[in-house]
């Protein structure tokens, strides 16, 4: 199974790293040269990392894991008002991006208040389009307990963040991230953010293991490369038109215009439309591609 890594090193002889990634069957996702330094984001099978590390050490570079590199994570706040935003939500979002994630901040339409809290079916569907979610629920214990019940039916890995240190009966809860009046940059705050990351990582790893047991017909990184090459959708530093998911990709293009083109893309011997389910996103006018599993294809 592919994992995401980043190579950080000098620009001198970085072509050797790229060549070796290609030889090992990896995929280069992004190259960011910065004067004499370069960052190369790539996907590679875990067993091959050791071999590449030998070369990277020789070139005085380093290879770092980016565990959320192939994920889109939703950071959900009860509302987009000043009352619930920005500090905890933006800090969480920024912190996860350091580990490679693409994050989207969502505010609920009727998410404020203890007794009038609601989460609509459409909002649940939007959140479920992501690979994982983080709910930032404020500082009141009772409020968090009531709001937690509403999201129990979600099947994606999620973490609930709130002010109280511990709340009994609330699953996947991390405390000490309540209402914040400034940036979370003290060592305690960073430790708390680390806890959120570790809890999420544990859940995501078990999801990956589940996918591994019934593997996808084609890895999403491979689909991303094929889409970029065949539809000429190479991203720039500011815009990444194809976002990786654990079980597919999101193509940030109009569904009407692009759904047929995406379906016609060749993935090895297959047509993408035949080995995946292509739907319109609930969030915006984008294309969601969910890969089918090998067992599903064998059954056909």
């Amino acid at each position, binding site marked *: 199974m592919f994992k995401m890594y980043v190579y950080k090193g000098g620009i001198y002889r970085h*072509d050797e790293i790229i060549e070796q990634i290609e030889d*090992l*069957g990896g995929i280069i996702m992004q190259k960011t040269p910065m004067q004499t330094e370069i960052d190369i984001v790539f996907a590679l*099978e875990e*067993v091959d990392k050791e071999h590449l590390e030998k070369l990277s050490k020789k070139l005085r570079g380093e290879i770092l894991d980016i565990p959320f590199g192939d994920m889109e994570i939703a950071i959900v706040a009860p509302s987009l008002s000043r009352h619930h935003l920005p500090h905890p939500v933006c800090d969480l979002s920024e912190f996860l991006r350091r580990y490679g994630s693409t994050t989207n901040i969502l505010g609920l339409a009727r998410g404020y208040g203890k007794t009038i809290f609601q989460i609509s079916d459409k909002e649940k569907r939007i959140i479920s389009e992501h690979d994982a979610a983080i709910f930032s629920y404020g500082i009141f214990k009772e409020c968090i307990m009531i709001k937690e019940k509403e999201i129990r039916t*979600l*099947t994606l890995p999620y973490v609930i963040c709130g002010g109280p240190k511990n709340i009994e009966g609330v699953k996947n809860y991390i405390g000490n991230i309540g209402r914040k009046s400034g940036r979370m940059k003290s060592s305690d705050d960073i430790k708390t953010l680390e806890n959120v990351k570790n809890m999420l990582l544990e859940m995501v790893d078990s999801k990956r293991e589940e996918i591994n047991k019934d593997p996808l017909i084609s890895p999403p990184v491979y689909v991303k490369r094929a889409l970029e090459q065949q539809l000429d959708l190479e991203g720039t530093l500011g815009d990444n038109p194809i976002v990786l998911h654990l079980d597919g990709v999101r193509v940030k293009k109009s569904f009407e215009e692009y759904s047929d083109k995406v379906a016609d893309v060749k993935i*090895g011997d297959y047509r993408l439309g035949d080995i995946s389910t292509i739907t319109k996103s609930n969030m915006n006018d984008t294309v969601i591609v969910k890969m089918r599993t090998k067992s599903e294809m064998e059954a056909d």
Partner: protein
Amino acid sequence: MKVFLNSEPLETSKDRISEIANIEPTEKNPIVIERKMTRSVLLKNLYEIDTNKGTFTIETFNNRFHEFFKENIENFKGLEIQWSDRNTINFGHLPIYMESTRKQFDYEKYTVLLGHSGFDKELGILTISKKGHIARNGIEKSVFGKVTKGRHVLELLSSNDKIEDIREVEIKSETYEYSVLTNDASIEENDNIITKSVIEIDESCPFAAEHFLFLTKEGYLEIDEKNVTYCRNNSLKGVSLPQEADLERSKGSISVRNSGKGKGCIYIYFKDTIEDKSHSVIGKITKGLELPLNLSPGQQFKVEPTTKRINTLGLTQGEAEKITEKMGIEHQRSGNDDDNAIIIEQDPEITIDAIKAGKITTKGVDPALVFKLRLFQDKAPNSAKYFKTISGLATRQLGRLEVLISHEDLDMIMFKGDAKLAGELAPENPPENGSKKGRIGITNMASRQRGIIGVRFNDSSDYGPTGEDDYHTNCIGEIVNYEMLRGIKEGSTIYLLMEK
């Protein structure tokens, strides 16, 4: 005693490798013995459930509910779907005499559990959760497994569908022990002696296939580098190849790199790997992948491509006739058609194209017009490699050089090189006591004119064959019949053969 030679069964009374396989393993050229070890049967808690809509697999945990399921597996066969909704699928009914409860519990997606329909022990059910939900299923925390494969089937199941069969999945494993032998040893019954790798050549990448066939013309391939994904041969590193079809590199595939610093290197893959534009896949090892898998860098193994190379360049017309006759290919002579004429052109030149056409045309010239060459491989290895790459001698028997500068008043002749390739050509083997006539010199990286190749017609105490001083000149060999180079015009091509 029954043994296997390259996986083919063989009855023999002998027990030494040299007697059975007619080959004596050495440190450089070892063989591999495959020995089947004890058979073991691994039983995991896996069950395949066949329904009329398809099969799904469940992985169970060890608890009392799993015990019940395992003991009553026959009773679960034939159960029909009693009801299904957006959260669950429920197969029933069978009696489950367990304590009933009206409490509600959380159930995760794809879990498998037991329950009581209407809290009645006689109406036991097997429930499969399609999504995370909260429910009263009649038995406390009765989850005993999870659907791991074929989850799509759950969406297809509806009323009137039923379980047709339930099977425990057995994972059988036969372990093989591989040993690399470097000397003549005795073997045991049922051992498989692996002495060669059989390679099926693919037609999609003819240039890369030609490259590989040239490298293995002696029948051996050496391993220079190895890791868990591939092993690599660097003998022809630096040789340029065109980009051809990019095919998937499956287990056993052989590919040639066509760009970058490692161009010309040959790779053998040990696991399935995705395609890449930089790799031209030339074929696949169909038998004997165990050899590269077990050998170490520095060792070589025998290879047997299913396609034989047809390249008559540098041979005589007579020799080419015999080869084509043996291979069943039509041969047409052009130019000098004498039996002793040296072939300088073959059409088509690439083996795969020639086999497709079923015919080759060879152009011959007088042997006196082909230049004989001696290379100082030991004294100037890097420069000799550069020369071979430029002249094409790296991948062919016959080399070609294009004349860059030639004039009747000039005491030397110069040929085109590749300044980029010569960028790493450090000074080696400089002329000693002046440059001798007939010697081949290359301007090294110390000069701006790097890469140029030259030959002098007379001795010179001051300048090398390319007109540079000693420090900028690498002396790489000599042309035996150099006198004939006089009078050759600029822009023409000369042909070279290594002296036998």
